[in-house]
């Protein structure tokens, strides 16, 4: 007799499969392919036109949720309403900007029997862009030289211009980065980023080379349970990988292991790396959640969303010890046709049941 698999209700955010896609849809694809459980998916959407909400084969039911700026009380209240109807077992938040709220709500949600598997607030803060340089020094990861600046004068005061030549990278504290080649571009982009994302603005030394990413997963006891390195093969104008291929560089996996062991990281993460002309791999960013190319890792043999659900529910989890090298993903843009009634009902009620045809 075959063993009956457990059945979970899993809520997922980040269903914005747009030109800079959220990880929600590939996370759901991975969950649907889990071998250790079956599941139904509750989509948590900020916007009514997040494409995942209209993918009937993947997402069973959708609810609109308040933006993180509305505060944790508003989010908890909405989650209480949704949980009453859907009986959620696990939530997988997939946006950087909402992680703070979910980390804050972890205890409240646990009391409601909703599990998550997230880093602590300290771990989350330590790898923030504006802390990354110091963090890299502490744990022995190479990070390009960085200066946090409140104003442009601040940068001039803090930098030795003989070492800080153009090109430089001007980065927002949460999102957005520009490579600048002269004073004019520096001034224009610094102002734009400061106005949009606030300060500090991070000015980073530019590293020329090839871009690699590593997706990974850290256990509750600071062990690296999964890691798949990928080389970006096609990059959009927003710097996002539109195609990539798994590679066998053990040095990159070692960097992921060092990150998890040094920080105690719990959950999914992504290292964004640049291998410079000097042969060193520099950490450009550490993203605190599963990246949008997660389905490549699933296809290569490491189903990280499945691992996350089992870890969140306290099930026994084992480290993956291999993955397929040379597996590629090529992203695609696909127009779905939606009846306006379907959209209209969602916009009025903030709820959408995809099981009703």
């Amino acid at each position, binding site marked *: 007799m075959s063993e009956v698999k457990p059945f979970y209700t899993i809520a997922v955010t980040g269903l914005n499969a747009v030109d800079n896609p959220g990880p929600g849809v590939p996370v759901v694809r991975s969950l649907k392919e889990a071998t250790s459980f079956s599941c139904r998916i509750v989509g948590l959407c900020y916007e009514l036109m997040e494409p995942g909400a209209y993918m009937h084969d993947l997402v069973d039911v959708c609810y609109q949720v308040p933006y993180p700026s509305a505060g944790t009380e508003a989010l908890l209240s909405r989650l209480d309403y949704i949980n009453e109807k859907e009986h959620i077992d696990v939530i997988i938040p997939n946006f950087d900007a909402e992680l703070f709220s979910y980390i804050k709500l972890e205890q409240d949600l646990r009391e409601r029997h909703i599990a998550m598997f997230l880093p602590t607030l300290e771990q989350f803060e330590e790898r923030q862009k504006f802390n990354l340089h110091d963090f890299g020094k502490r744990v022995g990861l190479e990070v390009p030289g960085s200066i946090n600046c409140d104003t442009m004068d601040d940068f001039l005061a803090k930098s030795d211009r003989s070492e800080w030549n153009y090109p430089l990278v001007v980065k927002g504290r949460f999102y957005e980065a520009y490579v600048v080649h002269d004073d004019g571009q520096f001034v224009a982009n610094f102002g734009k980023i400061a106005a949009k994302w606030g300060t500090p603005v991070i000015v980073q030394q530019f590293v020329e080379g090839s871009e690699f990413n590593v997706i990974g997963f850290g256990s509750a006891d600071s062990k690296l349970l999964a890691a798949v390195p990928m080389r970006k*093969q096609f990059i959009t104008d927003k710097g996002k990988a539109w195609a990539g291929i798994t590679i066998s560089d053990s040095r990159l996996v070692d960097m992921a292991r060092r990150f998890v062991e040094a920080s105690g990281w719990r959950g999914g993460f992504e290292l964004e790396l640049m291998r410079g002309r000097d042969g060193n791999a520099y950490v450009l960013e550490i993203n605190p959640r599963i990246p949008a190319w997660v389905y490549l890792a699933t296809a290569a043999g490491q189903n990280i969303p499945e691992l996350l659900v089992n870890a969140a529910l306290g099930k026994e989890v084992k480290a993956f010890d291999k993955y397929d090298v*040379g597996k590629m993903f090529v992203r695609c843009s696909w127009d779905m046709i939606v009846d306006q009634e379907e959209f209209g009902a969602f916009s009025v009620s903030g709820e959408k049941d995809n099981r009703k045809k």
Partner: protein
Amino acid sequence: MKINANIAISQSGYIFNPQTGESFSLNPIGVEVIRMFQEGKPKETIVASIVDRYDVTASAFACDLDDFVSLLKQYEMLTDE
């Protein structure tokens, strides 16, 4: 000289370096040359083999082969071992 053991070369001339993720396309002569490196043949033998079968002088092909070898080294596919 030795081709990195991990390098994958298809019949069609597609090369994939699994460590760097780089991929390349070779013409049929390039495939022949790289196969001979894989078999451990020295440069002199490769030059003689090509000159024997194609309309090219030894000096011209030796020069092209040197260029090809430096490219393979640059892309971490060939070592001097």
